[in-house]
């Protein structure tokens, strides 16, 4: 888990749960983005979704079999990690409000916890992958979605 604190503080009643892409906690850019969010007065918590098995840039460029890798990290396990993280944030970090951020791979999971008792109070996702219509329909709280227009099927809009 990577935790980035607001300047000069080690606690906060409001926090951001940063749900990463496949590159996870080890990716420098993910940590730097978490830090930049923390610099704006948010406690940021970034769980390791893959138990040390995040994909490296080198692996991705070498042609990693993403289907095989995804099978090692099923939805149920990702849900378990996020649930545990939310519980940790509320019980150990005394966080009262949680904003969820999901990028690509992580964009699927923020909506899953934006249900009535999901644990996240507000969400933002960018270019979500593998997000289902059911998951979108299950959202009961506020969410902002960023998605590239080139991927939009104009036939459906």
């Amino acid at each position, binding site marked *: 888990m990577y935790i980035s604190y607001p300047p000069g503080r080690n606690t906060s009643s409001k926090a951001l749960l940063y749900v990463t892409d496949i*590159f996870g906690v080890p990716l420098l850019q993910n940590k730097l983005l978490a830090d930049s969010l923390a610099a704006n007065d948010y406690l940021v918590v970034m769980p390791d979704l893959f138990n040390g098995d995040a994909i490296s840039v080198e692996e991705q460029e070498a042609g990693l079999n993403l289907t095989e890798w995804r099978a090692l990290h099923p939805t149920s396990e990702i849900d378990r990690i996020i649930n545990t993280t939310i519980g940790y944030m509320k019980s150990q970090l005394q966080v009262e409000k949680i904003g969820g951020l999901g990028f690509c791979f992580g964009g699927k999971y923020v909506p899953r916890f934006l249900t009535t008792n999901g644990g996240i109070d507000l969400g933002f996702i960018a270019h979500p992958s593998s997000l289902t219509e059911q998951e979108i329909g299950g959202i009961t709280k506020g969410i902002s979605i960023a998605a590239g227009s080139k991927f939009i099927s104009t036939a459906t809009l």
Partner: protein
Amino acid sequence: MVSTRHLLVGLAAISSALAAIPYPPHKVRNAGVPVGQLKNVSGSKYHSDM
């Protein structure tokens, strides 16, 4: 007029397309040094860096 259902279906289609396209992150030299902390959180299945 775009219906909510059309919007949901479109977003699901976007999502499926994105699932098949792993993107390489930009390689930025001297991007910075992380200032946060790595923590092991006990009490969960994942005793290593959770």
